[in-house]
């Protein structure tokens, strides 16, 4: 998955959308259709469009693309290989009990979401509201601030 290596950031974003789509397929394979549907709606629908919009807003069509990588890239390669190696070793060392794909029914998830997890659900809705207000405040144009003063 070439999301992090491409030089042009728009190509990276399109690769990210492909990656999100294949992840939605994996959720469907894992027997979690509600998570797959939410993945398509939120990631493919909302977040991808938001990121593409931000890229279009900030790139301004200049052709001279700078070098994509930071000078700390060798350290990053070492750290990432260490993390992946360690976690992969842990995955293959562990004995995973009875492995059978059970799947989760949609109505069971809905019941759990509104009974056992009702308080986190409400807190998350409040968090999203706060995030939207903060984003509007941050992305406001500076001229309006000066006009307000």
């Amino acid at each position, binding site marked *: *998955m070439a*999301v*992090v290596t491409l030089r042009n*950031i728009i190509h*990276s*974003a399109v690769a*990210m959308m492909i*990656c*999100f789509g294949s*992840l939605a397929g*994996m*959720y469907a*394979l*894992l*027997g*979690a259709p*509600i*998570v797959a549907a*939410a993945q398509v709606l*939120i*990631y493919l629908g*909302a*977040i991808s469009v*938001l*990121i593409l919009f*931000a890229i279009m807003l*900030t790139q301004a069509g200049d052709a001279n693309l*700078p070098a*994509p*990588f*930071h000078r700390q890239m060798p350290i*990053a*390669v070492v750290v*990432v290989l260490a*993390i*992946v190696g360690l*976690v*992969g070793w842990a*995955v*293959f060392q562990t004995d*995973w009990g*009875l*492995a059978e*794909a*059970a*799947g*989760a029914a949609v109505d069971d*998830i809905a019941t*759990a*979401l509104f009974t056992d997890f009702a308080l986190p659900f409400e807190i*998350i809705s409040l*968090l*999203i509201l706060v*995030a*939207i207000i*903060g*984003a509007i405040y*941050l*992305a406001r144009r*500076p001229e309006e601030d000066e006009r307000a003063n």
Partner: protein
Amino acid sequence: MGIEGYLVVSTLLFGLGVFGFMARRNAILMLISIELMFNAVNLSLVAFNAFLPPDTNTGAVFALMIMAVAAAEVTVGLALVIAIIRTRQTPEVDQYSDLKE
């Protein structure tokens, strides 16, 4: 494909996210890398939920909540990045080195 396959995919995705966050210079691409890490954690949660014995739906509920938090995070993050780009005229993070205005 057993649980190991999904966990290996999740690990590789998380590693790619960490690599992109540490090695790329573009602020928006760092946000994309954070999204990759969120997705890796989501995939491992749903895989654990599907394969491991306690037959509840906690993993899927957690995955949905992580998606909501990720949406809020990317909203605020993109607003911050756009505000910074508007003042600095560049998306490269290693030119944000000074805090002076």
